[in-house]
């Protein structure tokens, strides 16, 4: 028990300006939960393929420092930069607000949404985050307002530092938002535990692009909760590009009818990187559809994990749920664990799932070579073809070409 307790202390920064009364009760409950929860191990089914031993032993600094970070070109015009948790500028418009989570208490209408979806009783990292978060953001979009595209760049700059960040996004009825949330870690040995709660109200539409770029020896646990109400549309795309360990937990709770949900993910592992996607889509009501498509490419000694679960509850008739996970392993030492799961309790549904893991078609590579295309270029064409299904769906041209460049770059380092 002592080591778990110790990990909580080691990975929790001081609350500083984040000890507001609105968080107090939940923090206390989470503290209690942590007394009985343990750092997950491979004995837990949910963490079977993702080892946290190394992370559990690391020492972290939790001090507040301000350091410069490299500029990253934004994918869109409107950008908010958050540096070590500190905002550049928020947005305080009548119909769109973006502000630090520490100020949540000033918006009583939003307070009831906070902490509603996270499960501190069950999940260690939920409890840890809820107990210890000290920074993060809140986005609120007013009823019927189209907030268009917004980018939030979060820079993590201090070496060997632990971060606990928290986000709350509320879209009122018929609101629209397209958010690019970029987690950029600029120093090695970091641990980031990030948790997002999202409310997508009736007929609202949300697109979330999570771009995760970690520095060497850094780990990220990113947990996203989303509650979808009637006629809403939620689309998440996660690009996990670098990191010693990345664990994504996605929990989509579809509590309305006629909803559409899209979950797409791209993993690119090299060296000894470990990239894990755990997703849950829970269809509780009829006439909804969900589409899930995760693709991974794994070089060297990297590991990919996919566990996608779709529940179709008894009431959720006429659900269409599709799930696919495809992986390419580029070396004999790369590993992939893929487990798509469907749990269906309704009888009038259309559901399918599939998973494939393999190598590139050598015959196709030879065909390209036989037309004068060099082996490197041939492999790169094949990689781009493999992920095209995902990248073609991105409507932001700048993001698409950035991802393609990063993939190209990673490719050249791995072959």
């Amino acid at each position, binding site marked *: 028990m002592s080591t778990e307790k110790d990990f909580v202390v080691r990975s929790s920064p001081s609350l500083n300006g984040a000890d507001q009364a609105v968080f107090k009760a939940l923090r206390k409950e989470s503290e209690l939960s942590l007394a009985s929860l343990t750092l997950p191990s491979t004995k837990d089914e949910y963490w079977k393929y993702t080892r946290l031993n190394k992370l559990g032993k690391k020492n972290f600094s939790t001090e507040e420092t301000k350091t410069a970070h490299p500029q990253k070109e934004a994918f869109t015009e409107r950008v908010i930069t958050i540096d070590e948790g500190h905002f550049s500028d928020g947005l305080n418009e009548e119909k769109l607000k973006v502000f630090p989570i520490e100020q949540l208490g000033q918006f009583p209408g939003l307070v009831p949404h906070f902490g509603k979806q996270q499960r501190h009783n069950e999940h260690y990292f939920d409890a840890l985050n809820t107990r210890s978060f000290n920074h993060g953001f809140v986005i609120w979009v007013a009823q019927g307002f189209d907030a268009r595209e917004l980018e939030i760049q979060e820079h993590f700059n201090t070496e060997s530092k632990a971060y606990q960040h928290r986000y709350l996004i509320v879209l009122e009825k018929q609101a629209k938002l397209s958010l690019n949330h970029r987690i950029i870690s600029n120093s090695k040995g970091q641990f980031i535990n990030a948790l997002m709660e999202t409310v997508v109200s009736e007929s609202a539409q949300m697109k979330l692009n999570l771009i995760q770029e970690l520095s060497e020896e850094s780990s990220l646990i990113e947990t996203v909760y989303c509650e979808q109400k009637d006629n809403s549309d939620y689309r998440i795309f996660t690009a996990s590009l670098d990191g010693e360990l990345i664990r994504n937990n996605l929990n989509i709770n579809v509590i309305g009818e006629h909803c559409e949900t899209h979950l797409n993910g791209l993993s690119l592992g090299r060296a000894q990187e470990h990239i894990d996607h755990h997703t849950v889509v829970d269809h509780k009501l009829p006439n909804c559809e969900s589409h899930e498509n995760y693709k991974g490419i794994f070089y060297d000694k990297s590991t990919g994990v996919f566990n996608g679960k779709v529940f179709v509850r008894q009431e959720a008739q006429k659900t269409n749920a599709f799930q696919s996970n495809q992986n390419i392993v580029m070396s004999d030492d790369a590993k992939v664990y893929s487990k798509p799961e469907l749990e269906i309790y309704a009888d009038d549904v259309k559901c399918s799932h599939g998973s494939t893991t393999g190598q590139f078609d050598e015959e196709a590579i030879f065909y390209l*070579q*036989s037309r004068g295309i060099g082996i490197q*270029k041939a492999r790169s064409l094949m990689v781009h073809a493999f992920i095209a299904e995902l990248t073609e769906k991105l409507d932001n041209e700048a993001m698409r070409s950035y991802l393609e460049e990063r993939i190209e770059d990673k490719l050249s380092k791995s072959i």
Partner: protein
Amino acid sequence: MLEIKELKAKIEDKEILKGLNLKVNPGEVHAIMGPNGSGKSTLASVLAGREDYEVTGGAVDFDGKDLLDMSPEDRAREGLFLAFQYPVEIPGVSNINFLKTAINEIREYKGLEPMSAKDFLKLVKEKKALVELGAELTNRSVNEGFSGGEKKRNEIFQMAMLEPKLAILDENDSGLDIDALRIVANGVNKLRTKDNAVVVITHYQRLLDYIVPDFVHVLSGGKIITTGDKNLALELEDKGYDWIKEQEGVS
């Protein structure tokens, strides 16, 4: 242009080519015929540089260079082209992007600037007319969902785009109806010049009515056992391969 001397090759300990000799000069059309398992497709694969085959003896000179010493892509860049018996489907790579990449990789090898988009499109338009390939096929993924005939026409389209010195057609007549056969053969004929050469590998004489060879070779047991003119193909069609094996004393 191409000189093969005493070529020996095996696949998984099975020797298939057992000392093959062949000389091809610019402007010539050679047909290689022979029974199943005689080594026809192995010859094509070895020349194109397929890894599964191990060359155990002999030499291949291609325009003064050691062909066997080159990677598959360098062979193509030097002007060798293999039209596949079974063209490969590559989902996600568009025909156009594929050809543009190929042309520019070849140009880079030769120290030339990449081709401009305008010149490239002009070339595509000109060459696809040769094999009556529709716009919808050139825009799709490489060979994906193409019919057998479309795949073979696409091979000749690629050949037209890359303008090789030496084209090897590996059973490009198999599975083609008479109209598709005519289109494929016409495409090849229109691409012939005094400076390039074609090696046609086929089971049947039929294709040779359209692509008229200067030489017909019979490959059997891993060697060329006889060589003649186009009449040899007609005679083979008539009498079968056993006749020639008997004549040459090969069992």
